[in-house]
């Protein structure tokens, strides 16, 4: 039994033209048993920045709370919103601090920087960052997600098309994973607004 697949999750983020999208499933389960269907795995970290956390649910909650604290301190000290790339380094540092007793979670970051350029990245559980430019995935069905994203993704999609693409990538990947699913949440972030949609998927 692996710690990273004790609860189950599916997180994906994609970059489009002047927009990014981040999506996750909603299941909270303990191995085979599903406990709740509205578990939050994506957390806002600013007006145009969101982080999704996959992995052990307790660490998803602990890391998101610690990040919220660091973000609040950053805002108070800097008197401005954090840039996505800076936030990525913040998470990377937070995770590597626990190198020999890590948080069992893998973050996925999606945001728009101050110049309006889309930014997505992810790190592993000890903070190694990765900034591919097209899409990033995390969770128990990461392999299914890689397959779906590679097949469906095209660069420079607008917000509406990006929503459709990321939704289909997530839905079809999580349907092939017993531990992820029970609905989905999709956030599309543009320079001006964040549109959040909840999807009803196969509820099993």
């Amino acid at each position: 039994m692996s710690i990273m697949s004790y609860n189950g999750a599916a997180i994906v983020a994609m970059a489009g033209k002047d927009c990014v999208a981040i999506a996750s499933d909603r299941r909270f389960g303990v191995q085979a048993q599903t406990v709740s269907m509205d578990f939050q795995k994506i957390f806002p970290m600013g007006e145009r920045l969101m982080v999704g956390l996959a992995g052990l649910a307790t660490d998803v909650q602990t890391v998101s709370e610690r990040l919220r604290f660091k973000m609040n301190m950053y805002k108070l000290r800097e008197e401005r919103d954090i840039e996505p790339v800076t936030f990525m380094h913040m998470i990377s540092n937070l995770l590597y601090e626990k190198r020999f007793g890590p948080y069992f979670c893998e973050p996925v970051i999606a945001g728009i920087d101050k110049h309006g350029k889309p930014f997505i990245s992810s790190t592993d559980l000890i903070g190694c960052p990765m900034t591919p430019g097209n899409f990033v995935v995390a969770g128990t069905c990461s392999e299914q997600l890689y397959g779906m994203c590679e097949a469906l993704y095209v660069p420079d999609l607008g917000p509406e098309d990006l929503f459709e693409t990321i939704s289909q990538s997530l839905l079809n990947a999580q349907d092939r994973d017993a531990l992820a699913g029970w609905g989905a949440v999709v956030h599309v972030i543009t320079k001006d607004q964040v549109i959040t949609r909840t999807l009803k998927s196969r509820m099993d």
Partner: protein
Amino acid sequence: DLPLRSTAKMDFTWGVKGKDFVLLASDKQATHSIIVVKSDQDKMYQLNDHQVLAVTGEAGDTVQFAEYIHKNVQLYQIRNGIPLSPNAAANFIRGELARYLRSRTPYSVNCLLGGVDPQDGSAGAHLYYLDYLASLNEVPFAAHGYGAHFNLSILDRYYKPDLSVDDAKELLRKCLAELRKRFIIHLPTFSVRLVTKDGVQTIDWNAEMAA
């Protein structure tokens, strides 16, 4: 691998959130391996006037942790003059469980917290599910232990968000009937508590079953 002895699953706790109340139930057996040491053990702790915490898990950890939480919730009320809200209490419990999780002495305790915030009117009833790894979920209904495997589907089928107290008791009756029929461990008696905006009421379940 994640620690939790299999004996912890023999305990059963159950909770359902109604319109403006929470109904909690737990079995009353304290067992050590194949021996029933005590059959009138109360596994629920009244944290304050409107909150009840039901705990299962490692023997000893349960009592130590529950009493620690109870005293700290009371201390908050003494210091600040107002009681902790159910959401604040749930997050406090999660924080303590999470703090001890990576220490040398983690608490192997599963909790159900049922509470009503009397200020919030009908939106004030809350039921929280906490597992021993310190993950926190607000849920409409929940159960811990092997009993959960038998009851969650029944709750999925018959639960409605605007349950009345009698409906909730009927749900409990159905769930316990299923355990009696299909669970190999015989659980003869249950503590049942009803949390409303007027406080915590202990329900004599033996009397309910006879009625």
